[in-house]
């Protein structure tokens, strides 16, 4: 990882001359920081240590979320306060007008040693402070501009509260939005299947919870676009039954018209009213839709008497459905209109040479479809560029399957046995960084949530 960043920075060194020169000289001068971060093209971010111990957990989670966003070089300070309150004259007030929207009113801001953090390679510095009423005040400093960029206030419930972690994750997303102006993916959870049960886990690997405790074996969880519901399939007496479960209440309801056949791989349409799924009958497997709002109107989208159609995934605008079809022999990725018309090949393949392709998922930004493909007897994750229809292989170590997109469309969770057994991993497509999400054998079929709304954050 570090090496990759270094290589990128060398190639584009001229473009980012300012920070590269300063970072390098800072390191050369022998400033000791916990981990020597090589200067990169990504902006430097430092989360300042604080005196309030109650915020240690918040700080740790925010720092990790910012790190896992893969958009910053996280700078770790060795001792903390000795640097923060160095004797260099505070230059902050000397640069009026450059601090953006920030108020500069926080006490911490006045004492921040901007030149020092600049020398350490930081472009942004984040300070946390506690305020009455479970309120956390986050000050985002623009180090280069030498002023406060934004001050955020958020209600963070006590550590023991079930909503604590998600509130902090949401805060981390706001820091990302305040510093870089992009939406994050910290306030999300990943559903997955383990031992036939559906579980949910924070994207940073914490707070794992079982969300479906039925006696029936479950598969294929899928999120609704609003993050308030999810669907999954259960085996019932040889049939497959679909359920839609409410996140906040934990209550679930069987989907109308299912349970009489083998119904599987549910996928919500973006409007949340239609659920597409695969139905296996003696004619084979085909894709159907049902109106889950009114519990009616079963429609059959594909008719493949001598081949199977399955695993639907909607484009974010709801206009198209990518799916798997065996019409050419091995399963491959196809696309059709949302009503089932105009089916055509989506991910190109060489007949007789390319292996089976399965498990497509359309990215939230609509530009890509991730799937896995058999390469030499094992599965690898691929990404299809929707516009050019170019296919790129993403993984090569071990068996990698069932990719699912984060709402930022640059992170992806998938199942990999690269560590010796199958578990969940997360990859950042921009930097190539890979981290384990869950170090437990047998976790599979992940489904990454959209950004979770406030009300739905406590459970699952």
């Amino acid at each position, binding site marked *: 990882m570090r090496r990759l960043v270094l290589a990128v920075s060398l190639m584009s060194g001229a473009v980012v001359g300012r920070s590269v020169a300063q970072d390098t000289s800072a390191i050369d001068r022998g400033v000791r920081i916990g981990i020597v971060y090589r200067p990169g093209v990504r902006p430097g971010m430092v989360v300042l240590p604080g005196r309030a111990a109650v915020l240690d957990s918040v700080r740790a989670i925010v720092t990790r979320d910012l790190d896992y966003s893969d958009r910053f070089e996280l700078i770790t300070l060795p001792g903390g306060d000795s640097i923060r309150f160095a004797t260099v004259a505070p230059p902050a007030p000397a640069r009026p007008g450059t601090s953006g929207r920030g108020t500069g009113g926080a006490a911490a801001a006045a004492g921040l040693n901007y030149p020092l953090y600049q020398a350490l390679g930081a472009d942004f510095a984040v300070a946390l402070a506690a305020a009455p009423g479970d309120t956390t005040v986050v000050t985002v400093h623009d180090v280069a501009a030498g002023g406060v960029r934004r001050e955020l206030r958020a209600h963070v419930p006590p550590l023991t509260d079930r909503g604590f972690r998600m509130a902090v994750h949401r805060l981390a997303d706001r820091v990302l939005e305040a510093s870089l102006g992009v939406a994050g993916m910290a306030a999300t959870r990943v559903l997955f299947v383990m031992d*036939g049960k559906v579980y949910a886990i924070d994207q940073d690997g914490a707070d794992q919870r079982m969300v479906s405790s039925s006696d029936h*074996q479950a*598969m*294929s969880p899928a999120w609704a676009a609003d993050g308030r519901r999810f669907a999954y399939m259960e*085996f019932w007496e*040889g*049939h*497959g039954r679909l359920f839609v479960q409410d996140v906040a209440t934990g209550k679930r309801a069987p989907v109308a018209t299912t349970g009489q056949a*083998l119904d*599987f*791989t549910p996928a919500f349409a973006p409007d949340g009213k239609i659920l597409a799924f*695969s139905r*296996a*009958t*003696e004619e*084979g*497997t085909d894709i159907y839709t049902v109106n889950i709002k009114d519990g009616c109107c079963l429609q059959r989208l594909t008719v493949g008497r001598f081949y*199977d159609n*399955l*695993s639907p995934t909607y484009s974010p605008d709801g206009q198209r459905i990518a799916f*798997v079809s*065996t019409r050419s022999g*091995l*399963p491959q990725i196809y696309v059709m209109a949302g009503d089932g018309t105009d089916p055509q090949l989506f991910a190109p393949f060489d007949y007789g040479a390319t292996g*089976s392709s*399965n*498990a497509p998922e359309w990215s939230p930004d609509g530009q890509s479809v991730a799937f*896995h493909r058999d390469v030499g*007897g094992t*599965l690898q994750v691929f990404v299809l560029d929707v516009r050019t229809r170019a296919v790129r292989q993403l993984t090569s170590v071990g068996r990698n*399957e*069932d990719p699912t997109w984060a709402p930022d469309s640059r992170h992806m969770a998938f199942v990999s046995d690269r560590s010796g057994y199958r578990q969940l991993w997360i990859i950042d497509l921009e930097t190539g960084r890979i981290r384990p999400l869950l170090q437990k054998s047998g976790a*599979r*079929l992940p489904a990454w949530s959209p950004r979770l709304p406030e009300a739905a954050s406590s459970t699952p």
Partner: protein
Amino acid sequence: MKRVPLLLLGGLVAVALAACGGKKPEPPAPAAGPNADSLAAAQKAHDDSVAAAQAEAERLAREDAERRQRMADSLAALGRSTEAVKTILATMVHFDFDKSIIRAGDAAVLDQKVAILQANPGLRIRISGHCDERGSDEYNLALGNRRATSAKQYLTSHGIDASRIETASYGEERPIDPGHDESSWAQNRRDEFEILAGGDNLKQP
């Protein structure tokens, strides 16, 4: 079986006749002598008839016990035949990787099931298709469905009514061999046959 009540009835009649034989001269009873004391003769005749009745009752009881034993034996034999039929019925068929075509060698296995289904018209079964772990988890549900369906098609094409056979697929969710090599995978790529109804007394075809 149907004779049992008749035999029992016959036995009862015999006992009843024997019991009230005191007034009627039973064929063996008068053998004591025509000129004997009438009271003693009557008493003896009565005693003899009681003894005869007891002997008859014992004989009947013995026969009854033997008959019960024979019935139990024949029921056990019937049970053994049901078990044998069930074993044949449950014999799995196996598939090549990512294929749902019935192998030539497995046609004979299915032919046996055709015969059993024909000999037992009340029998209903479910065929469930299974896969090995190599393919995609969700695709394997479709593949398992194809495997179950192709066995069903074989049975129906040999004259079995389609309504007597359900199909199901469990994909790779229920392996019978947890290993990760070809011999395990070969075991797991299979159709299972389970009895839904009419499996209590199965006739040999």
